[in-house]
């Protein structure tokens, strides 16, 4: 066991527990963005940073396992320095994001949007300057990829690789130009993607979404010549029940 303090209060946690888990076990919530349990713990987004006594810089809570060397240390999860850092990280992400929220499939259900609200981002144009402009990949039948909304968290990459063992998406280019796409920038339709959509449900933003076919259904319903028949799969009812989804 390791004895630590979180925000000045003493806790005892098992060695190897990450700071994030230690906090969660004790009812303290640290916001995250790139972390997806079991498949993506890479400390890339810097949203979960905390202040740790003795450390020279802020520490990513999702990838820091507590050990005997941390005995007695104090971890600050919401100090002014931490809150300022999280906010600045978000503003930097927004500086290279198209912020097309009103017409976005994920508006209202976007993790980036929710964090901006939580951390009080009050000036989305704080960092002006160059922005990437990527082509939208609409090649496949089931989905599109709009990298102008991508924050490079790599959750989709991990879902494709770790859940499915497929790995048709990854990071191309480096630094500012980094883009999550297929090898050699190929269209998704020309890869061995199997259309499972696990990347979509892993995506925190509207960068990945299914192709919306509802207009076709509305059109058929309005056509007096057509008989519209509908079937539903059993699993649909198991996620539809969430009251907050349906108004």
């Amino acid at each position, binding site marked *: 066991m390791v004895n630590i303090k979180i925000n000045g209060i003493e806790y005892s946690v098992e060695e190897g527990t990450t700071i994030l888990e230690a906090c969660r076990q004790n009812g303290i919530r640290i916001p995250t963005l790139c972390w997806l349990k079991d498949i993506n713990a890479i400390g890339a987004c810097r949203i979960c940073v905390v202040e740790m006594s003795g450390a020279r810089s802020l520490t990513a809570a999702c990838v820091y396992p507590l050990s005997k060397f941390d005995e007695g240390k104090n971890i600050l999860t919401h100090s002014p320095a931490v809150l300022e850092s999280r906010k600045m990280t978000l503003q930097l992400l927004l500086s290279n994001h198209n912020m097309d929220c009103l017409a976005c499939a994920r508006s209202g259900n976007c993790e980036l949007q929710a964090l901006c609200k939580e951390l009080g981002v009050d000036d989305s144009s704080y960092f002006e300057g160059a922005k990437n402009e990527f082509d939208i990949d609409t090649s496949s039948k*089931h989905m599109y990829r709009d990298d102008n909304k991508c924050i490079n968290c790599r959750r989709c990459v991990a879902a494709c690789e770790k859940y499915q063992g497929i790995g048709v998406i990854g990071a191309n280019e480096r630094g500012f130009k980094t883009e999550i796409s297929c090898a050699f920038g190929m269209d998704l339709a020309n890869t061995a993607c*199997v259309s499972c959509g696990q990347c*979509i449900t892993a995506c925190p933003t509207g960068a990945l979404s299914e192709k919306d076919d*509802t207009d076709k259904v509305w059109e058929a319903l309005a056509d007096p010549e*057509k008989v519209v*028949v509908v*079937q539903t799969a059993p699993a649909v009812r198991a996620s539809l029940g969430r009251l907050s989804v349906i108004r």
Partner: protein
Amino acid sequence: MEEANEFIDRVKNGDVLPMITSCSPGWVRYCEAYFPEFLPNLSSCKSPQQMAGAIIKTYWAKKNNIDPKNIVSVSVMPCTAKKFEIGREDQSAAGVPDVDISITTRELVKMINKAGLRFNDLPDEKFDSPLSEGSGAAVIFGATGGVMEAALRTAVWKLTGEAPDSPVEFNEVRGVEGIKFAEYNVGGTAVKVAVVSGLANAKKLLTQVKNGEVDVQFIEVMACPGGCVNGGGQVIQPAEVRNFVDIRAERAKALYSLDTARAVRKSHESPDIKEVYANFLGEPGSHTAHEVLHTSYKPSSLSK
């Protein structure tokens, strides 16, 4: 029904085993691209989406005197691969595509909201015919192990003298574990099965089967981890929820509780299924059944 029958036939005739389920279009696409050597093992049964679509445009269209060309068949699916599946070859029982539009659970939510439906205030209602009331076996198709269990309910009943009190629950194939094995004694014969979800797990199991390290007769594969309940078309839960709640297990619980509450829990006992076979298909595996409910596969040019 068709799948259980196909399995029994394969065992009796000494055809290619293990038989592998074909309900998950992500998995079928994966098999065609990454494991084409297993295509003869894939059940020739269409997926439930395509079977229902085919029945609607053949049997139901004829019964109601509607030209199948005037039917727009829409499916609501927890799945994005279903959008791909509707355009596959050999999926047009009535000479027109079995299903015309496939939308995800998320798109249905959009439609409900856009239509201004107060969904939670709507009274419960039955589906229209045909296939109005699914059996418990149909409901559990949405969870990993559910397709296997549904097939076992019917296959075991058939192989053990069609007793009405044949076993219903096969708990060994349930649960969110990525790879599951079970062995059942069916009328003196050992039936060995495996259930996988998540294609990384499918790859692991198929490699073992290929190397002769695993000996099973029947495999269920679902592309998504935990099965369709965790499909790529389902309502998106943020990481905040996913990291601390096992949505696969929670959603599966909902399906198994619906199954327990059903009076009819085996496919072959469903009055709707009986009616379609009596009036249209004849016997499972019949010539008509093959024309309407079965399909074919071919290796993908987009292999690994």
